[in-house]
């Protein structure tokens, strides 16, 4: 079935349709795309916002938590009035308000080994905005098993790292790290802190990678390399190569 953009949609997306690397065909591809965002937190909030704004057809949002006051410094999908509300419901309300074109599916559960494959199978791309190693390795394993491209990211304090994985074509998260650190060495945002804008930077890169992949970019994705961002050292960025071992 062919999909045509309405006059309003052409106006809404005009500023990205006019980008030479995108155009109307890419916009239709985005409209037909389905992205699963794991976590409606520091990474997932900016990622989901930009993906809805860009006109992704369906967004799935997975998060078991409720909005807390301490989330609001970085989790920009949620507002003061949302405290106590399920994050996925708060997220859906904001995303629907931003762009009624995007269907938002909500999963108020933890992404775990029992539900991961069934949930992920409905999607073309996964944005991993989770906050723990168990979920990050699970996302990797399920995405590889199902052949779904995904964006990985991790953040803490003033630093973040991100990579994109194309199963069968590029290095995966387990190619990068064999396993998680011992619990006593893990720094997370709850215990170690995070600057909200740093979460936003990484989450926005993840959204950009999703759009590039879904729009059909064949080159230039953050594959086979880890992009690290360190805001403390003056926004230095480096793309370190991972390997050429396909997942």
């Amino acid at each position: 079935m062919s999909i045509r953009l309405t006059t309003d949609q052409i106006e809404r997306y005009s500023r990205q349709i006019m980008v030479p690397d995108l155009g109307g065909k890419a916009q239709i591809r985005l409209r037909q795309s389905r992205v699963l965002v794991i976590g409606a937190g520091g990474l997932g909030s900016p990622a989901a916002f930009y993906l809805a704004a860009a006109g992704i057809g369906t967004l799935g949002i997975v998060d078991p938590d409720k909005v807390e006051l301490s989330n609001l410094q970085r989790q920009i999908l949620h507002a003061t009035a949302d405290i106590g509300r399920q994050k996925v419901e708060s997220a859906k309300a904001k995303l629907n308000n931003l762009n009624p074109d995007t269907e938002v599916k909500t999963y108020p559960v933890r992404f775990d080994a029992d539900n991961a494959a069934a949930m992920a199978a409905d999607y073309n791309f996964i944005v991993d905005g989770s906050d723990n190693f168990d979920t990050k390795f699970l996302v990797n394993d399920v995405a590889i098993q199902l052949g779904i491209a995904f964006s990985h990211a991790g953040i803490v304090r003033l630093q973040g790292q991100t990579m994109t994985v194309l199963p069968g074509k590029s290095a995966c998260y387990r190619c990068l790290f064999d396993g998680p650190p011992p619990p006593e060495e893990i720094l997370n945002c709850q215990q170690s802190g995070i600057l909200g804008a740093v979460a936003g930077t990484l989450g926005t890169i993840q959204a950009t990678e999703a759009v590039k992949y879904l729009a059909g970019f064949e080159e230039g994705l953050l594959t086979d390399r880890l992009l690290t961002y360190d805001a403390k050292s003056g926004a230095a960025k480096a793309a370190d190569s991972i390997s050429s071992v396909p997942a």
Partner: protein
Amino acid sequence: MSVRVRVPTPLRKFTNGADEVAAQGGNVKALVDDLEKTYPGIKDRICDETGKVRRFVNVYVNGDDIRFLQNLETALKEGDNISIVPAIAGGH
């Protein structure tokens, strides 16, 4: 010879908060030993009890993963840029 080492957030408690330090060494193993002399305790966070780089840490020389070079025996030259990159889990 001196090389520059980018220090990740989890290891900055050993470098008095510095995000980049200078160190010496003809190869990565010697470099790690030199870091340990100046910043006691840091080696245990990079290498395991057998002396290998820990599985959740990657070391890059001028952007290349030492696992695909000569690992800890990877030779260094004046002015090389070394990155120590551990896995980071945060996201919320």
